[in-house]
């Protein structure tokens, strides 16, 4: 992937995240009313395909978006530039997304 593609991916994920973050924030605001409990959370998420799908897409978009952002910051503020770093950032993006999907799966199958 070159810089133009990474930028395009970051903006595409930004559009997904703009929507997903609003949903996530509203979920948080609603969920924390009256305190959080495991039974309550798992009651909402267990076996819920729509919920798993949403949070998997969210995690993938967030992982890619964040790592591409870190790439720009590292290039400008630390001078980390080049193919090797780009590959490392893509690796970090996918690893982060995998962690997120694992967490979502945990709540789905709990």
């Amino acid at each position, binding site marked *: 992937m070159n810089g133009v593609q990474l930028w395009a991916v970051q903006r595409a994920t930004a559009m997904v995240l703009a929507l997903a973050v609003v949903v996530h*924030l509203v979920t948080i605001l609603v969920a924390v009313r009256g305190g959080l409990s495991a039974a309550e959370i798992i009651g909402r998420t267990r076996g819920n395909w729509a919920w798993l799908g949403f949070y998997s897409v969210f995690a993938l978009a*967030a992982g890619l978006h964040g790592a591409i952002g870190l790439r720009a910051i590292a290039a400008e503020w630390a001078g980390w530039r080049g193919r090797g770093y780009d590959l490392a950032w893509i690796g970090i993006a996918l690893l982060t997304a995998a962690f997120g999907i694992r967490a979502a799966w945990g709540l789905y199958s709990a």
Partner: protein
Amino acid sequence: MSDWRRRSHPAWIAFLVHRLSGLALALFLPVHFWALGQAIQGEAALEGFLRWSDNPVLKVAETVLVILLAAHLAGGLRVLALEFLGWRAQQKTMVAASAGVAFAAGLLFLLNLGA
């Protein structure tokens, strides 16, 4: 320093907030995912994690994260409006609205925590 005087305009401040909130969120994200993944080994483990996270220091940290997320979202909408809709004139308004959205989200979170 001379560098800072040329930066004292709303769009630059919006950029800085966007960058720093993005940096914090991007560093927090893997930790958030990993911790959740670890905590979710059944209901009892999750309950233990949630009770651990009840301490006031973590509540403050969570509030900060909600504000950062809202700020980054609002700042991101500014960038998308500029890049994809070509909005040029209302940038100051966009910056102000972004700040408003961020603080409103933080306030709502705090109010709901207490509810």
